[in-house]
């Protein structure tokens, strides 16, 4: 990780835009990135002009532009969330098998995903809860989880009920095994590596407060 990342800490929890801005700041210039549906999509709004970051959408496009409005809406041009989008100069279109080959072949630099749970070993659960009448629907989540060189998760650290979403073992059905590299939350950023789970940033909490609320060993990476 860029050492500069470790030095920024906040005194208040981040809102979803704050998280998105933080992620955007950690994406290297020129990276090829897929932003999952929902909160991850917000990251696009915080990418600095001229960053050269190229957005991939798994329904068959590189160099996707912002959401389309008014006369720019074209039913033939949507993102993976089926929202009308625009095309940037240097765009390329390809079919679904080529698009997922690009993903599954490990060519994307970063994929940003939402999650229900992430385990201390980097397992991701983001496609299904165990709600009694849930209809299973996975979309591209499992491909995204295992394909990119780095997988970043954005989520709140706790459910509305106060239960941690960063856990020893996921209780929800898994999307991918050991695939998450970094977890961005309202209260902290976590690096997951073979060494363990390291807290690199905190927002409005201390390392010790976090450690007390999460059921796993944490490494303190906030003051390297």
């Amino acid at each position: 990780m860029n050492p500069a990342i470790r030095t920024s800490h906040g005194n208040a929890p981040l809102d979803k835009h704050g998280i998105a801005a933080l992620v955007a700041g950690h994406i290297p210039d020129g990276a090829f990135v897929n932003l999952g549906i929902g909160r991850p999509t917000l990251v696009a709004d915080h990418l600095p002009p001229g960053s050269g970051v190229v957005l991939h959408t798994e329904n068959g496009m590189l160099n996707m532009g912002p959401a389309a409005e008014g006369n720019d809406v074209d039913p033939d041009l949507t993102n993976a969330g089926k929202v009308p989008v625009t095309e940037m100069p240097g765009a390329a279109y390809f079919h679904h098998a080529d698009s997922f080959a690009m993903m599954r072949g490990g060519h994307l630099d970063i994929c940003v995903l939402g999650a229900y749970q992430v385990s201390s070993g980097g397992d991701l659960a983001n496609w299904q809860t165990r709600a009694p009448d849930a209809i299973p629907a996975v979309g591209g989540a499992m491909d995204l989880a295992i394909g990119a060189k780095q997988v970043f998760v954005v989520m709140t650290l706790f459910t509305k009920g106060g239960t941690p979403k960063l856990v020893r073992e996921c209780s929800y059905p898994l999307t991918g095994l050991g695939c998450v590299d970094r977890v961005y939350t309202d209260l902290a950023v976590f690096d997951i590596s073979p060494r363990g789970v390291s807290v690199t940033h905190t927002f409005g909490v201390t390392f010790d407060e976090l450690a007390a609320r999460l059921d796993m060993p944490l490494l303190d990476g906030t003051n390297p």
Partner: protein
Amino acid sequence: MSTRFYTDAGEAVAEIQDGSTVLIGGFGMAGMPVALIDALLQQDAGDLTVVSNNAGNGDTGLAALLAAGRVRKVVCSFPRQADSYVFDELYRAGKVELEVVPQGNLAERIRAAGAGIGAFFCPTGVGTLLSEGKETREIDGRTYVLEYPIRGDVALIGAYRADRMGNLVYRKTARNFGPVMATAATTVIAQVREIVETGALDPETVITPSIYVDRVVQEVDQA
């Protein structure tokens, strides 16, 4: 053999029979062959297996086919959507089977059928519910799941332009599943917005060559 051109979508889909596996292109509405699905609804083939990314939206298209009780099984990556209530209700009532397939596996399994691949070891879904009971193997330190081809009796796809030979080009992200589905079905039926003379498409830009296209129907402008 040579592509045949139809002005009537009903005629183009007339031979689809009970029990067929039908691949349906499109991702949301982009690339959705609406006229062909509507025509399929007008004939009476039932007991269908539908392979498509989603399981219908609102009350039209695939949702109408489901509502009419014509579909035995849906193979898709993402049935649940804001307006997938027709499918949702049938599924919860046990009136339609569902095989959920990760989207990349869906695309690659369809490609495999078209490319003569017997099966392939795939990195997606390892250790998840969607690979339960499937053969796995470690290759070069990574675990893979063995996935099999998905073939159709028929593919219904939407494209942008066809030439008179049956070569197809697509437009923007409406390309999505069309090109792979066109390789993987016994009979491939494409609806297109425009038909141009042979020679009018740049040969470098043809995405689905005519060899894959059995029938072409030009969309009638609804406006």
